[in-house]
């Protein structure tokens, strides 16, 4: 411990975290590093790899649906494909991605701290995460087959199916644990480690969004954890909990599952909203409009988002009272999200907008998320939902919110922060071309889902009626365009890490938050001296920031 601190003091100020040589060298220097920046990169490698697997599965699903009968795989394989696709995308891609990658890397820097509150726990979360992810991949290849229940694991099927459920459930449980620990770490970091002068309302909005998200993570993740654990227990020991033959109420499982999984959609989207709130003011060179509203609306989402879970159960025969209450609350929860969209648009208004790649993705986020959100409101209406539930309309909604939201938020963040993280710039032209291909592919792929759903095409269905084929073909073609765009984007980013133009200036985009005050790439210790903060994060009058006197020992 002592020697480590010593080395830090020797070169921690000047050396980039990428070149730093600590106790361990080479690969171990990464795998055992407790530096929040290195852990962020580790997460980035993990998440993007899983994302690639998820996209491949999605691509195969689409290929299968090219024709109304079997095209490339059998029905059982199809069921496993969409289940694992859902599990990977939800639990190991979009839930962790923004907090674990960009939160880890930038939260401490934005707050003016040298690391997160519990660096070692931080590293532990990464290992838990990888173990969980690998378990899920294993379930795909081991005999017995991957989970085929859909990512929702509904009982009684999940208690009875012969596939490798226990693997999958354990994996989700472990990943949940990792997520709780990350949340706990961020909450403590935000409470205890802000730089002098940075009071709550001088925090960047990204930090606010992580704060709200972390609360949701800490509070609701244990609920799904215990619920899935009970399914395991029920499978292994035949303890009566959810299985109706043992007296259980399968709907209770659905309640418990959605008690987490609805708030989880806010774990998914709120950090992405935080990214957007960073990017919009920078690329319109304007103070963000309604800072406090945006900050509070994150908290509002966290609170109200936890109270609407049963809108996933409108068609299950809940009591009428519950149907009414949850429908009403669902309409309310749209308000905080709408507040954000209004504030972003107001910021854009009369700003001098620079259409760089991050900004393009951010604008696409607003557009796609609005479509996703509005279709959500449609489904929140009881009578309409009874018709739309379990159709492709839902699948369209999921993808517009989750992929159009968090997916595009991720791409925006990559284009915004990657140059800072590695000190190299990607090819901006290619980035813009890739954006347009992704954007067009996305809409060609997912918009037909709304039409299909409206026509009555059921989700999770291997066969379909011939009259749906036209839209399925369009969607499949869309998936090819989308995958092409994603490939171009990723290759462009990867190539830039090796061959990209070197960047030495600190402030690449003209941002006002603290990460743009430190060197590119940041040094091991982030700051030579802990800065003192006087202004809010988005004040574009002049650069009034001042790094202050010697810190008191």
């Amino acid at each position, binding site marked *: 411990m002592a020697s480590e601190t010593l080395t830090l003091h020797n070169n921690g100020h000047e050396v980039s975290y990428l070149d730093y040589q600590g106790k361990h060298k080479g690969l171990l220097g990464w795998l055992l590093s407790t530096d929040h920046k290195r852990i962020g990169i580790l997460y980035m490698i993990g998440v993007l790899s899983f994302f690639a697997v998820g996209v491949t599965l999605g691509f195969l699903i689409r290929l299968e649906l090219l024709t109304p009968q079997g095209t490339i795989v059998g029905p059982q394989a199809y069921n496993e494909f969409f289940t694992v696709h859902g599990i990977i995308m939800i639990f190991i891609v979009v839930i962790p991605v923004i907090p674990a990658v960009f939160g880890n890397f930038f939260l401490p820097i934005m707050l003016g701290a040298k690391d997160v509150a519990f660096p070692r726990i931080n590293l532990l979360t990464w290992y838990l995460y990888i173990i969980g992810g690998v378990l899920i991949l294993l379930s795909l290849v081991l005999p017995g087959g991957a989970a085929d229940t859909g990512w929702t694991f509904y009982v009684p099927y999940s208690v009875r199916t012969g596939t490798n459920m226990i693997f999958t459930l354990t994996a989700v449980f472990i990943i949940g644990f990792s997520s709780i620990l990350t949340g706990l770490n961020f909450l403590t970091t935000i409470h205890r*480690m802000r730089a002098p002068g940075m009071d709550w309302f001088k925090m960047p909005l990204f930090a606010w969004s992580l704060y709200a998200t972390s609360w949701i993570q800490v509070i609701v993740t244990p*609920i799904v954890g215990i*619920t899935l654990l009970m399914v395991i227990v029920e499978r292994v020991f*035949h303890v009566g909990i959810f299985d109706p033959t043992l007296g259980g*109420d399968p709907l209770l499982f659905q309640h418990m599952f959605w008690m987490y999984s609805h708030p989880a959609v806010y774990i998914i989207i709120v950090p992405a909203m935080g990214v957007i709130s960073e990017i919009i003011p920078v690329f319109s060179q304007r103070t963000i409009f309604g800072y406090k509203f945006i900050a509070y609306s994150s908290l509002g989402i966290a609170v109200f988002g936890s109270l609407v879970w049963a809108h996933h159960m409108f068609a299950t025969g809940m009591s009428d009272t519950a149907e009414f209450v949850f429908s009403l609350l669902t309409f309310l929860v749209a308000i905080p999200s709408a507040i954000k969209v209004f504030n972003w648009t107001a910021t854009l208004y009369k700003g001098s907008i620079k259409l760089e790649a991050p900004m393009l993705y951010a604008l696409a986020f607003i557009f796609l998320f609005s479509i996703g959100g509005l279709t959500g409101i449609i489904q929140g209406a009881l009578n309409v939902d009874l018709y739309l539930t379990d159709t492709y309309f839902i699948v369209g909604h999921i993808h517009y919110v989750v992929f159009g939201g968090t997916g595009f938020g991720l791409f925006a963040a990559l284009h915004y922060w990657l140059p800072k993280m590695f000190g190299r710039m990607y090819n901006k032209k290619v980035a813009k071309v890739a954006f347009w291909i992704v954007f067009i592919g996305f809409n060609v792929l997912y918009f037909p889902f709304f039409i299909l759903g409206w026509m009555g095409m059921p989700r999770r269905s291997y066969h379909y009626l011939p009259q749906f084929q036209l839209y399925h073909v369009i969607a499949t073609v869309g998936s090819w365009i989308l995958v092409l765009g994603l490939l171009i984007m990723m290759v462009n980013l990867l190539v830039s890490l090796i061959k990209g133009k070197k960047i030495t200036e600190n402030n690449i985009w003209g941002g006002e938050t603290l990460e743009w005050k430190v060197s590119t790439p940041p040094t091991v210790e982030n700051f030579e001296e802990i800065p003192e903060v006087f202004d809010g994060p988005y004040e574009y009058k002049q650069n009034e920031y001042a790094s202050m006197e010697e810190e*008191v020992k």
Partner: protein
Amino acid sequence: MTTQEHAVEQVHRDDIRSKMGMWLFLFSELLLFGGLFFMYSVYRFMHQQDFSIASKEMNTFLGTLNTVILLTSSLTMALSIAAIQRGKKALSIFLQIVTILFGLAFMVNKVIEWSHEFAEGNFPGSASLANRPPGQILYFGLYYSMVGLHGLHVLVGMTVIGFMTVFTIRGKITQDNYVKLEAAGLYWHLVDIIWIFLFPLFYLIT
């Protein structure tokens, strides 16, 4: 906050930070059990009669005894912190060991109880249990899950306190650096609180 305070925090250890982490962890533990309590309340509401009948089979004496044991272990745990605060290392170590022993006694009682239940055929998956009315199957399902998970926490707690005892002996936990012990204590008390609820909910249904 003033600059000075903050600067000090950045460099030195920050006990409040550690405790805050621990409290947040306790919340997630609380909600882990919270989920089970949700299930319990729903099923008890649906099957009041069956729950009451099944709970009559519990050994109330052992349950009460175990409650007292666990409460007392909480006392010794709290006292061990008070001792270290006063620099009384030996006393603190002694009290920590007593706490572990109480935990052990609790577990022994549990084993006795469970083996009794198992001997009567009331174990998960058994034929005689499966033939009972749904409410009673659920009661025992919840009983084994909740009490079992709690037992697991007692074991973890004992292990953690064991480590603390070693740390205290080795001088890593001292009069002015005992936040680890405090955190372990917090965990132990939470386990106690959960039992405070489990006890009436499973043993004392009228």
